[in-house]
């Protein structure tokens, strides 16, 4: 299934949902947005995961300088570029402005302000201590109230609990997918599609998992195995093809639309009818230590996490994973630590390629060369 097919299928899906009277709430795809609240309110969360070509990227320059990350630029381009293959974005009813990073704020604000999509707010603290958890609760309550105002009634705790359970199940399946051995491009497409359709895609995920479990698990593909960390690869991007053309295979996606998302599972045992479900979301925020938003321990946690992925994989398959750290140019979060991440992992014997790029077509050749050279080294 190619990107166009996914998009047209998704467009139909959204139209159906709108016809059912559901509102669509968009937000830029990073972690920490509590989509269970949106779901419990009876709305459809739409995660913006469309970026990867220069047309979209360049269509944002009336709003932000070109020295903005290509993802934020492209997210604006989705609205400013016409004609567009993303017409389903016209169905958005609200857009959440959030501060995963400052480019997230600016792009979301521009989308809301200049493309007339009413705005909701959801901000989070940068550090993680008792007070930032308390602050997180304030924001959750505030978002809940914003959503309740739209729907005209309270969101019952029971509904929120059910949404949490539903998303929990969804994430567990996604995690299983992420751990399956299959061609990286295929895995990426499945995950991208799943993130659009949300828990409505659980059955499809289960079917895929079943099919793959029946196949012999390892050594099907004669390739150099990789973990992709840093920035996600979004719908419309050619990067994964370049990696595969160079003989690599991404076996694990450690990005916003990979493990950052699917690992955020709330322990089922905690989902108890007597407990305030907002506290569960707070607990999840607290446990999300690998996310790149928080300071000051991101680098340490990220290194230990990649090390673990590397060693687990070696134990399981006997193969050494290479690491591609995907850095979208001007990404504050991923870029600043990249040299240190690489040095510290290399000191532990793990090969890392810091792959910095924007979405210009002109870069393609250069990117291929760098990826090929890295594959040679593995």
């Amino acid at each position, binding site marked *: 299934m190619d990107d166009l097919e996914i998009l047209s299928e998704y467009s139909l899906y959204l139209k159906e949902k709108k016809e059912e009277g559901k509102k669509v709430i968009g937000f830029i795809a990073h972690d920490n947005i509590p989509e269970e609240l949106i779901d419990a309110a009876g709305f459809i969360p739409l995660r913006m995961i469309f970026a990867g070509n220069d047309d979209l990227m360049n269509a944002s320059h009336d709003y932000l300088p070109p020295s903005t990350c290509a993802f934020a630029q492209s997210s604006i381009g989705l609205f400013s570029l016409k004609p567009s293959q993303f017409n389903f974005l016209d169905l958005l009813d609200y857009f959440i402005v959030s501060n995963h990073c400052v480019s997230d704020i*600016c792009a979301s604000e521009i989308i809301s302000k200049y493309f007339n999509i009413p705005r909701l707010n959801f*901000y989070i603290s940068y550090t993680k*201590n008792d*007070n930032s958890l308390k602050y997180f609760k304030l924001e959750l309550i505030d978002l809940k109230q914003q959503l309740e105002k739209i729907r005209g009634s309270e969101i019952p705790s029971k509904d929120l609990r059910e949404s949490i359970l539903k998303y929990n199940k969804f994430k567990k399946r996604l995690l299983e997918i992420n751990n399956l051995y299959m061609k990286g491009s295929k895995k990426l497409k499945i995950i991208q599609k799943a993130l659009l359709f949300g828990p409505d895609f659980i059955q499809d995920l289960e079917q895929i998992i079943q099919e793959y479990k029946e196949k012999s698990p390892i050594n099907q593909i004669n390739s150099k195995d990789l973990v992709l960390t840093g920035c996600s690869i979004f719908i419309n991007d050619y990067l994964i093809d370049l990696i595969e053309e160079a003989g690599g295979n991404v076996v694990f996606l450690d990005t916003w639309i990979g493990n950052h998302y699917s690992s955020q599972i709330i322990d089922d045992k905690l989902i108890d009818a007597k407990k305030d479900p907002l506290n569960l979301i707070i607990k999840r925020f607290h446990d999300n230590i690998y996310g790149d938003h928080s300071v000051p*321990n991101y680098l340490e946690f990220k290194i230990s996490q990649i090390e673990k992925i590397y060693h687990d994989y070696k134990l399981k398959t006997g193969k050494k994973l290479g690491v591609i750290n995907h850095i979208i140019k001007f990404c504050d979060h991923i870029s600043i630590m990249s040299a*240190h991440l690489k040095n510290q992992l290399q000191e532990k014997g793990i090969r890392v390629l810091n792959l910095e790029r924007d979405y210009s077509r002109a870069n393609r050749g250069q990117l291929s060369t760098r990826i090929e050279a890295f594959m040679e080294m593995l």
Partner: protein
Amino acid sequence: MSLMADDIIQFSSVLRIAYNLLAGRDYLKRKKFREKKKLISVALPFSDLIYGFPDLVPVFPIRMHAFKIHKYLTYLSLGSDIFGWKRVSKFLSFVKNLGISEASRIIEEIIGDVIDTVNDKYNEMYDLGIESGIPNDFCYGIKSLYGMHVSKGKNVEATLNYTIRCSAWNKYLESLKTIENPAKQVWIDIPPRNIGNALELLTENIYDAIRELEKISGNNYDKNILRNHFQVANEIRKYYKTILYEISTSDFYPCNPATFSEILVILNNSFQDYNSNAIRYRDNMLSLVNEMKERIRNKIGMDVSKMPRILVTPMFGGWEPKSHEIIYELGGRALYADWDMLLLLEEIPISKFSDPVEAYAQFLLNATKTGIGCDNDTLTDSYIRLAKQLNAEGLVFIQLFGCHSISNCYAMLKEKIRRDLEIPSIALTFNKIGENVEQVKTRLGAFMEMFK
């Protein structure tokens, strides 16, 4: 117009501030080694909390470097040591009698020198920042600050880190941990929005930081000391605002406008740590205001009534320091007032709160909510407010390469300028000092034509 040696005597406070900015290294060495005080690195105007601990000394890290201090400034300082600054005139005649030619150097050259010296160091630190692993994508300020910590971070006991809306800033602060033998980090998380009991949470976060600072200092926090400091800090803010709003908007300047802009640059730099001594800084600011007023009263200075007021902003993260000279040569006067744009020159409301920590939390939250803002809509309102308050007749917006926060909002700002101010504006891109002077000249040339 030139200001001769005798004028300098009447205008010595600015030289004192400049000298204290440049001679920080010796002062700080004395504090650290002789008086056994501990240095705490601060950046942006966030040093106030450190003054609650007499054993701790805040320092904006560039000040730990040795600077080439102009001979004349050194003479003046020596003179001040012997005779006191007020009687420095005696020293000047002494210097003159010795035939030292610099005695008649004009004040603008000395101040210009100070700016050049500091900026050369900034560029050096910028290169060091890149060499040490900060990617080129980041703003000038972050690259140089990282370089400053690589070269001088070992001298500080801790860094005091406030989270702001700029993700690059917050991440940069974390990245300081990657420097060899990193200083301890004390964090204060400022809630992004003022909702619910955010004020209370921020107050608690400040208290947590105070506990950390107590451990570093070895002394207990004393609320009276902090309250007293906030009084001093408020006076400093008042004098700073007098310079910005009374003097810079008047028709007669106490010196030529390029020098005046340079004084504003020195204030912008030194305000971040009050040159490590808030009381001395307050006294110098008071003298500066008095001296400026005195000069204006005596008609020493320059009639600037025909020179359009050009607000140049934001410049704290990096800008081309030749800008004000170019604007001056083209018939305008450049004003710098970033700290007030971000509402960091507002009073710390100690009269409204019995707890000074709560007052400070209120101050920070106000700056976050209304000054820096949690989005560009609020931030651009801040630029507009400042331009109005300064009666700016033109606005030069510095589009700083790699800044995704304070200086990426020109498109939105331009619209508001057109709607609310109806003054000409221009965006100048900036990457590194001295890299693009010719282009700045050309663009400002075209821009200043609009005022003819």
